[in-house]
Structure formats: structure tokens, C-alpha cells
């Protein structure tokens, strides 16, 4: 038995130890990717079955607001990645500053998304308007909850600024970012 095998047996996480951050966050990340993957798959299948309903719903959305939010979230992801690099270099104060920037941009994403929801609801579109809007509000609302949770996680790991904690918090944040860059074209731009 090699030394690596012994270490992996001691921690109990096996090959998950090779990932950045706490292995537990990766269990969560893989679970979330599976759940969102199925959810997006359901959206795609529903659109294929009712293309006219989905095209009509999509036409009422504002892709420019979603585009702005994409830029906001990827910039937030960039700040979080810089925070990880700073934390690994032992620059805890700088890591905290980058994390604060990432959280602030996360707040901007939430504000823009709520503004977008307000416009859609004011136009008479709600959860029960059509299958498109049911899936749209559930998918984007579920993602929005994850943005909020991600900000809380970043706020928890921020004060210490330790590399392992920052890696754990930012891994979750990048997953939220990854989900959005895939969701954005599928919901707002792709036509059946």
C-alpha cells in the first residue's frame, strides 16, 4: 500500500482529495450539477414539445439584462479566482478584498434579476402563465437562491482568508457561475 493510499484512507475522501477545497463542497457541486442538468434537460424537452409556446414566452424576456448579468457574474467569478490566488500566496487581506468584490457583484446580479422579474410580473407573466414561464421562474429562481447561498458561503470564508477555506467557498461560487453561462443561452437565446 502506497503512502498516498494510506493518507486517503485516513481522510476517508479518497480521490475527492485531489480537488481544490473541502471534498464535501464537491459532493454538493456534483449533486447540484446533476440536478440542474436534469432541470435544463426538462426545459429543452418541454420546448421541443411546445415550440410555439416557448418562443412566445422567450420573446417577452430581455436578453440584454441577462447579458449584463452574465458579465456581472463572470466578473464576480474572476474576482473570486483572484481571491483564491491571493489566499494561496498568503496575502489574506488582498484575498478578503477580492472576496468582497465577488460578493458585491453577486449582490448586483440579484438586484438586476429582481428588476427583471418585476418587469416580467408587471407585464402579466407569472409562474402559471404558461409552461415556459413555470420552468423559467423555477430554473432562474432556483439559480438565484444559489447566488444568495454563494454570497453567504463567501462571507463565511472571507474573515479568515485561509487558502483552504477560500478554495472551498470559491469552488461553490464558480459552480453558480458555470450554471449561469450554460442557462443563459438555453433560456434566453436559443430558438427551437
Amino acid at each position, binding site marked *: 500500500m502506497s503512502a498516498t493510499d494510506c493518507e486517503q484512507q485516513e481522510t476517508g475522501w479518497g*480521490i475527492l482529495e*485531489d*480537488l*481544490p477545497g473541502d471534498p464535501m463542497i464537491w459532493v454538493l457541486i*456534483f449533486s447540484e*450539477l446533476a440536478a440542474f*442538468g436534469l432541470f*435544463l*434537460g426538462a426545459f*429543452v*424537452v418541454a*420546448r*421541443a414539445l411546445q*415550440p410555439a409556446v416557448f418562443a412566445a414566452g422567450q420573446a417577452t424576456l430581455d*436578453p*440584454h439584462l441577462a*447579458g449584463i448579468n*452574465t*458579465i456581472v457574474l*463572470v*466578473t464576480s*467569478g*474572476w474576482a*473570486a*479566482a*483572484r481571491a*483564491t*490566488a491571493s489566499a494561496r500566496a498568503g496575502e489574506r487581506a488582498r484575498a478578503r478584498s477580492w472576496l468582497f468584490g465577488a460578493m458585491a457583484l453577486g449582490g448586483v446580479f440579484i438586484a438586476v434579476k429582481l428588476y427583471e422579474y418585476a418587469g416580467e410580473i408587471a407585464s402579466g407573466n407569472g409562474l402559471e402563465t404558461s409552461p415556459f414561464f413555470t420552468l423559467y421562474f423555477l430554473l432562474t429562481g432556483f439559480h438565484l437562491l444559489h447566488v444568495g447561498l454563494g454570497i453567504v458561503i463567501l462571507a463565511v470564508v472571507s474573515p479568515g482568508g485561509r487558502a483552504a477555506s477560500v*478554495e472551498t467557498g*470559491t*469552488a461553490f461560487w*464558480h*459552480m453558480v*457561475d*458555470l450554471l449561469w*453561462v*450554460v442557462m*443563459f*443561452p*438555453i433560456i434566453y*437565446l*436559443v*430558438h*427551437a
Partner: protein
Amino acid sequence: MIQDRLDIAWIILIGLALAMLLVPPLVPRPLLANALLLTFAAIKGRRIVLDFLDLRSAPALWRGLVSAWVVTVVLFAWLASAIVALI
């Protein structure tokens, strides 16, 4: 330099996000437009996986697994739209 790599990834992500908004008005053919949009999404996802999530140096199993998730979702979305367009 890791900071340089992160900055380049960020610029690519911003550029592709802006390019995606230009695709629907500039590319009238839905099949081609969808293919472009979803290819851009896959490239963005790959950049996030490699540079932001930092799986570039992780074992190929994990890098491949998360990348496969991105490719599977966008490919499924494109195939579904292609089938509807061709029927």
C-alpha cells in the same frame, strides 16, 4: 503567471458574452445561430472549469467529468432544437 491566465480567461468570457448577444440579430438561420450560441457557451464553461474552478491541474477524471456535463447539456439543447427545426 496565474493572474495573467485568470485575466485572459475573464476577457474571453466577457467577449463571448457580448458576442452571444450579437448572434440572434446577425445570424438569421436558427440551426446555425443555435450552434454558435451553444458552442460559445461550451467554450465559456470550459474556461470556468479550467481556470476559475482550477481543474486544469486536477486529475483528468474530475476535469473530464465537469467538462462532460457542460458538453452534454449544450449538445442536448442543440440536438433538441435541430430535431424540431427539421421535423
